[in-house]
């Protein structure tokens, strides 16, 4: 049940169903300032005083900044981004729940939003009564609800519970009923915010089929999800949002790769933030001061420290250490762990089969470099751990779990796993 639209003389091209132009929205970080600005703004409105809303006041920030995009008829647009990137705010602005602070949204037909299922459900009302209530809240007329009642009941699949109060439903049944009502509203443009993951497997599959059906009716769909697989299957195009801005707007396949790489960059940046040579090394076990590691990291082709490599690039890890006494022989063990740090994806020992024995180490500062010409690591985020031992007695000089992380990037979508291998598939009839 949307507010009565305000008509303007604005025109949209025949196949454009939604246009967002230079959209901006600001919020306030502190409750006290939010209250204060609320009072000021309401009084100004009461007095009819004109004031600019496109400037930030103290503690305000842009939740959305200059967002522009178009949606064409029959298109399914995916919006992805980290939490707090502005996806839901954008959806609420398009739906008309929030007014913009500047910019404009124009659309053809009726917009429906699936932001949360079961809006306005009353626990003491029966499922049937709540269908009428929720359906009306979502903008359906009584006649439309009557016409679709059987479909809604079938879709929700709640059996005899239909005549029972909603308070007696399980949480799964409640969301199924809410979802069933919402998907039968049949707006011209449907906005979905992360609600396709409700219910059990059977219901989720049913929901996905319903979405496909909706797409085939040539209506436009805007779909927000963290489930990249759903985005890949449902969307023709994706928008990546970051800090309230659109940083990518293009084909789904390219968008997903860009998003995965961006996410890895962010994770590595967070890990490496404020991480100087001292605190890169954590949980260390050092035997006195005889031989200690001072730094560890990844190098690029130019020999500079880096935090990302491509799947096709060699992996080059260095360990800087200082020997404070003479050592006859030393060796290194080094492991590359997955992001959760529960699997050793690579583990190597320098003196395996007597290959690299570093002998007669005099006091001084050293750097040892380890190269993997072909690392076979799948795209993802990895950590590096090390140990330095005496090659004769196997005494442990220094062993540390590190905060050193790096991202392996690819221009191909890779969903999960830790090893990258060329795959080839074929399908044939079996005799």
């Amino acid at each position, binding site marked *: 049940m*949307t507010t009565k639209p*305000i008509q303007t003389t604005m025109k949209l091209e025949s196949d454009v169903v939604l246009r967002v132009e230079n959209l901006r929205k600001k919020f306030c970080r502190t409750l006290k300032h939010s209250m204060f600005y609320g009072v000021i703004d309401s009084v100004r409105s009461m007095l009819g005083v004109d004031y600019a809303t496109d400037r930030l006041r103290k503690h305000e920030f842009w939740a959305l900044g200059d967002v522009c995009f178009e949606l064409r008829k029959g298109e399914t647009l995916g919006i992805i981004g980290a939490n707090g990137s502005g996806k839901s705010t954008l959806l609420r602005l398009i739906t008309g729940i929030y007014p913009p602070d500047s910019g404009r949204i124009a659309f053809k037909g009726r917009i429906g939003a699936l932001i949360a299922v079961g809006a306005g459900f009353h626990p003491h009302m029966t499922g049937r009564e709540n269908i009428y209530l929720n359906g009306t809240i979502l903008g359906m007329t009584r006649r439309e609800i009557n016409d679709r009642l059987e479909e809604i009941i079938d879709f929700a699949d709640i059996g005899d519970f239909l005549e029972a109060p909603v308070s007696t439903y399980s949480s799964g049944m409640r969301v199924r009923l809410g979802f069933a009502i919402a998907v039968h509203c049949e707006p011209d443009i449907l906005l979905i915010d992360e609600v396709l993951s409700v219910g059990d497997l059977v219901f989720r599959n049913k929901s996905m089929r319903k979405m496909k059906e909706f797409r085939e009716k040539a209506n436009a769909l805007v779909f927000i999800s963290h489930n990249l697989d759903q985005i890949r299957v449902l969307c023709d195009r994706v928008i990546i949002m970051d800090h309230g801005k659109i940083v990518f707007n293009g084909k789904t396949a390219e968008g997903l790769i860009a998003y995965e790489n961006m996410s890895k960059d962010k994770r590595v940046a967070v890990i490496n933030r404020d991480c100087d040579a001292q605190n890169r090394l954590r949980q260390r076990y050092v035997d006195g001061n005889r031989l200690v590691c001072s730094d560890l990291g990844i190098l690029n082709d130019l020999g500079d420290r880096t935090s990302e490599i491509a799947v096709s690039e060699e992996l080059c890890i260095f360990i800087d250490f200082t020997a404070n006494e003479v050592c006859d022989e030393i060796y290194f063990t080094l492991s590359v762990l997955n992001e959760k740090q529960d699997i050793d994806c690579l583990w190597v020992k320098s003196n395996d089969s007597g290959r690299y024995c570093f002998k007669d180490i005099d006091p001084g500062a050293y750097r040892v470099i380890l190269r993997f010409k072909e690392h076979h690591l799948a795209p993802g985020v990895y950590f590096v751990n090390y140990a330095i031992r005496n090659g004769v007695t196997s005494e442990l000089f220094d062993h540390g779990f590190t905060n050193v992380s790096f991202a392996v990037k690819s221009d191909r979508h890779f969903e999960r796993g830790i090893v990258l291998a060329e795959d080839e598939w074929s399908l044939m009839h079996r005799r």
Partner: protein
Amino acid sequence: MPSEITVYEAHQRRKTGLFEAVRRMTIDVVRCRELIWQLFKRDFLMQYKKSFLGVGWILLAPLIGFASWVFMNAAGVLKPGDMNFPYPAFVLISTTMWGVFMGSVIAASRTLKAGQGFIGQVNYPHHIMLVKELLQAYANFLISFVFVTALLLCFSVNLNALYYITPLLVLPMLVVAASIGLTASIINVVSMDVEKALGYVLGFLMFLTPVVYTADNKTGIVKTILTCNPMTYLHGSARDLIVFGHTDNADVFVCLSLASLLLLLLTMKWFYVAEEKVIEKMI
């Protein structure tokens, strides 16, 4: 795909004039009548569903009020002055009428908060909640009015013909209540102080208004306050008409009733513009 284009822009409502804002709000109310009805049903019928007394709660308040005034009158605590009407019945009618004012102010102040369960999920015209809330307050009044009437008839209280148009005579009070409540609903979103203060202020206002006494023969500061208080006329004159069949301030009552309509129109326009400035603070 329909070709009708909807546009959302910044400050869309700021330039809207008084009559245009009221026209749009009225259109929304008519268009969303089914939603108003569904929400009214939900909140009115369901408020007593999980209760043994049910709708009896609406009747309990006047009944207890009636009993306490009868007791105080019998104990000689009250000296209401000379009136040609049983004092407990006078108080019962008067407080029931005040109840609709107080209930409507509080109900209207919930205009935005009434949709809290879905205001962040669905775009609906928020002002329709004012109608739903007022309907609810008015329905509660009608139930207690029927009960009070039955009670008075049981006690053989002589009611004049004007008594039966009480539901119409309280409408100006309802309009004032809507204006106050609508203003409070905006401020309620920003700060909870108004919501908390409203109960105290209305309780105090009752004693500044001749609800449990008449305005006759008052002198000094009390007379000044009663003369300046618009509720003296909106409530007192209506009550005098109902109870005694006449009022000395019929002209002031009519003027204030018209003024209250104008006040409501102005408040509606302000609500229309101001609510979009505060709505995101609800969520």
